């Protein structure tokens, strides 16, 4: 028997490969949050009026509320299956730091649910009247924002792991914590649309994403362990 122990990085990559393969086998599941985002973005013009100049003003709000709500929806995909079939438990018992493995899982989750949002958001913004020059700023903002949202949301998902399927509790836990992301992200989007430089809120958003990436794994490991008891 080959006794070479798998290192942490190799194990994390293997876990990521597993999750990707699983997601590809159920491709529909990962694309649902994207569909939800597009539906919400469509609701705003329907609720107001189809004039692009008005929509341009509310475009940051519509985009970011949509991003927030669809990432909430996507959180369901993160731990539910693994928690139910016992694989999350096995992950807690593997010989690698649990926080690191969960970070790998969250990263894959972001690639599957956040990255499509990043690619589609500029198009949705265009549909709401944003000029082409605003696209890079919007792209950067949604990129950083969805990363931070995935991490913050993962902590919430870990805390509500074994509870009855009560999406409202998860929303109540995650949304207040996500407010700074919303504020800076929407501000960056608004500045981009207005033609000004979105650098200041983008830096703050990047700081939030880095903070989340550093602190969330530990909170996540603690929360999931409590959920597995």
């Amino acid at each position: 028997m080959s006794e070479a122990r798998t290192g942490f990085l190799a194990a994390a990559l293997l876990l990521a490969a597993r999750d990707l393969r699983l997601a590809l086998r159920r491709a529909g599941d990962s694309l649902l949050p994207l569909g939800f985002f597009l539906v919400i973005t469509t609701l705003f013009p329907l609720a107001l009026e189809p004039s692009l100049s008005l929509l341009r003003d509310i475009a940051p709000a519509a985009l970011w509320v949509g991003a927030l709500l669809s990432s909430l929806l996507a959180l369901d995909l993160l731990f539910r299956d693994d928690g139910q079939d016992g694989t999350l438990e096995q992950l807690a018992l593997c010989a690698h730091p649990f926080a690191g493995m969960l970070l790998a899982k969250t990263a894959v989750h972001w690639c599957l649910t956040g990255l499509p949002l990043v690619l589609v958001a500029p198009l949705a913004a265009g549909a709401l009247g944003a000029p082409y020059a605003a696209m890079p700023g919007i792209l950067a903002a949604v990129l950083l924002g969805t990363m931070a949202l995935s991490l913050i949301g993962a902590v919430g998902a870990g805390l509500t792991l074994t509870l009855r399927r009560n999406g409202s509790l998860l929303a109540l836990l995650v949304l207040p914590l996500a407010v700074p992301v919303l504020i800076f992200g929407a501000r960056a989007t608004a500045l981009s649309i207005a033609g000004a430089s979105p650098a200041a809120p983008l830096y703050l958003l990047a700081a939030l994403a880095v903070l989340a990436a550093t602190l969330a794994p530990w909170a996540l490991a603690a929360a999931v362990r409590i959920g597995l008891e």
Partner: protein
Amino acid sequence: MRPAAGTAAAATADAADGIAADGLHLWRGDTHVLQGVSLHVRAGECLQVTGANGSGKTTLLRALCALVPLEAGRVCWRGCDVHLDPLAFRGELAYLGHDNGLKGDLTAAENLHYAVGLRRRVTRDESGAALERCGVPALRGVPVRRLSAGQRRRVALARVLLSGASLWLLDEPGSNLDAAGSALLSELLAAHAQAGGVSLVATHQALELPADAQRRATLQALSLTVAPVMA
């Protein structure tokens, strides 16, 4: 809370061997589930933990692998407290719970590859051999969700076998297994004990094992008493 008479002395004598638990206390809500449970299972031994439903067998196993936090007590693996180096301890243990720990959308072979791959590199031949040993060689390319409960359990056993871990903590491994499956389980445990491994099995149906390898403990309502096996 009554550990068997000889256990305490034996525990200090050769504590640097196998798994030893000392004075474990655990509450679940208001129930004092583990009341000062102590045990010591040496290399080459298999401890069967029997008891009525709800007597705490699952809780004991989960407490030993630190899935459930203990209120009091120590767990030592090969003489070292497991809290000092949890990663090393986890690297040497394989746990089989009520759930099989298998992904339904992956095939049996893929499950083994990903699950055991976190621990050590596994070749296709090795996973094939493990599945064959557990009596399900033809199922390697079948998605697990299409297998019956008994077949899934066998795949899960293959995972435990392939992991190469020294300590096996198995919770009701014989559930859903037919008579052939139970015989297989006994063989696997005997072989593991032969190779110097340690196993704790929670079961309500006693398994047949060579007498020198086996001890049976009964987890009665809230206490653990260890009895020597009648040969």
